């Protein structure tokens, strides 16, 4: 219905320019607006997140701090598509997760990397296979075949310092080594969004630093957005931004 005017051409061109500019380094990977979240329903419902507003851009590392019970993990699981949003707006990797169904949540989870406090490796798979299993969830990696996936997994394990432990089962690895396998599993598919819950808790100082350097590398090289919950003061300096959550609300530092 819009009248075709000569002015339309130049204005479209200008729009395209700004979009291209955002694509290179300012693309919004996370857009949260007025997000509330409750646990339970009816009389016993308990609000755990309250009017959260947050944006995270590609290539940005955001550290989320706050006392226990402040809703950090809940927010993180929502960003990773483990829970659907109940009210407000939650856009992750361009997809609106308000009242999202299982299928779209599962689709998002495939594109996000998740590192949990507990490593949760599969005990019956070797370190290499555990990392490969993280790749197999993506059809693109399956297409490339097992050899390609093995190469990628081995390289990633090498980067976390486990090149000598590829064929070890988790039960033969130390706590820190297991955590590093879990980190390799999350990093191997080069996720566009990485979510980490206390990733360095089980690591000593130097391997903690190494892991964080990998995060930086992922953010810089492939423009991943990274949101990390941590109390580890030694790695706070890696963050582009530190945000603080208290009683379900974001507070300015």
């Amino acid at each position: 219905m819009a009248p075709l005017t000569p002015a339309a051409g130049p204005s479209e061109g200008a729009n395209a320019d700004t979009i291209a500019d955002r694509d290179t380094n300012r693309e919004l990977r996370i857009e949260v607006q007025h997000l509330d979240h409750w646990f339970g329903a009816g009389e016993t419902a308990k609000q755990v997140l309250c009017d959260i507003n947050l944006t995270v851009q590609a290539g940005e590392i955001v550290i989320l701090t706050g006392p226990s019970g402040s809703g950090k993990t809940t927010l993180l699981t929502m960003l990773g598509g483990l829970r659907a949003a109940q009210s407000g707006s939650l856009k992750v990797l361009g997809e609106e997760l308000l009242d999202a169904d299982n299928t779209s949540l599962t689709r998002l989870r495939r594109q996000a990397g998740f590192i949990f406090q507990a490593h949760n490796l599969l005990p019956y798979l070797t370190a290499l296979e555990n990392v490969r299993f993280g790749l197999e969830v993506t059809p693109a990696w399956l297409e490339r075949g097992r050899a390609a996936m093995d190469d990628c997994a081995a390289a990633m394990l090498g980067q976390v310092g486990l090149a000598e432990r590829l064929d070890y089962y988790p039960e033969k690895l130390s706590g820190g080594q297991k955590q590093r396998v879990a980190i390799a599993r999350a990093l191997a598919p080069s996720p566009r969004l990485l979510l980490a819950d206390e990733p360095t808790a089980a690591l000593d100082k130097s391997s903690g630093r190494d892991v964080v350097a990998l995060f930086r590398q992922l953010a810089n090289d492939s423009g991943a957005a990274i949101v990390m919950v941590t109390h580890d003061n030694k790695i706070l300096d890696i963050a582009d931004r530190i945000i603080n959550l208290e009683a379900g609300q974001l507070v300015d530092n």
Partner: protein
Amino acid sequence: MKLLTALRRTPLAWRQTSHRPMRLLAAIAGVSFANVLVFFQLGLASGLYASQKRPLQRLNGELVMVSRRYTNLGEPLNLPRSRLIQALGVQGVKAVTPLYIGKTDWLNRDSREKKQALIFGLSPENPALRIPELEVDRSKLLRPDGLFFDILSKQAAGPVGQVVTRDGYYDTELRGKRAVVNGLFTMGLTFAADINLLTSASNFKTWFPDQSSDDIQLGVIQLEAGVSAQQVQSTLESFLDPSVKVLTLKQLEEVEVDHWRNNTSFGLIFNLGVLVGLVVGAIIVYQILYSDVSDHLPEYATMKAMGYSDGFVVGIIVQESVLLAALAFAPSLLLSMGLYALLARSTSLLIAMTLQRALAVFALTLVMSAGSGWLATGKLRRLDPADIF
């Protein structure tokens, strides 16, 4: 294409099942045991049914005439011989011959123990049963107190076979009258009796004097070559007295098997046995997989968090159940074949493994396993990855 990419996946079900070899062995042993139970019941049932047909398979004709109320060979019912003679009038009928069937006590000469015997009376000039041993010397049947003894009879009958082979005869008594076993034959037992005996029609009448000379128990009708048994059967049915019926040999076998299957508790007992075997297998598989799910809940939640679908996660468990069923099948098949051989030897029942039965049990155990595998995934389907972290 889809299958090819599936093959590139790490075989999780297999890796998880084989990760604890002792546990896997125990699981296989359990499921195999359940399969053997099923095979045992099915084998015994089919052996029982097949063995009941053995005398019928010796019938020397194409059609038989029996009393209308006939149910099985072990309960002989009289019919008049004159009815059988009537059949001779139908075109295509070559000859008819009576089969006398009686049940009587058999006395073991050594232990003085009494056993149940089924005795068949044959007309020597045209025997109603095909007995190769009889063809050698039919005149033996003509001896007034002569008997042939089935060497597949129960051991408890006494060492009749050895004695006859050694001395040529074995003295005993039947229904208070002297009887001499002067020949042996091989037919095989039915559940109707412990011993099978053969004798001539006239001897039969001396041991069963209460029967009238016109009473027979089964009439065998022999047809000319190339004549349709069904056609003669319907002609006979059209004019014969309703107190008798005419059956083909196949129908007679079916009546016999139906009797044992439906009119006795055998059918129910065996079906229950099969059910028990399947339930035992299902419980074992369920136990194993349920504890597997419970032990690895955080790992399964992690899979869901990584983006694997509910179907994928449930699929792992169902694959494991199918894997267990498949791995347990071969050992259970071997064990069952051994068991069949043992049973066949010790009971002289016709018990053998058939491809059909093996496939049927394989299908049953797969369905049973997959079913309990699916039941064991209840927790997994409800598992919310967010609750674990």
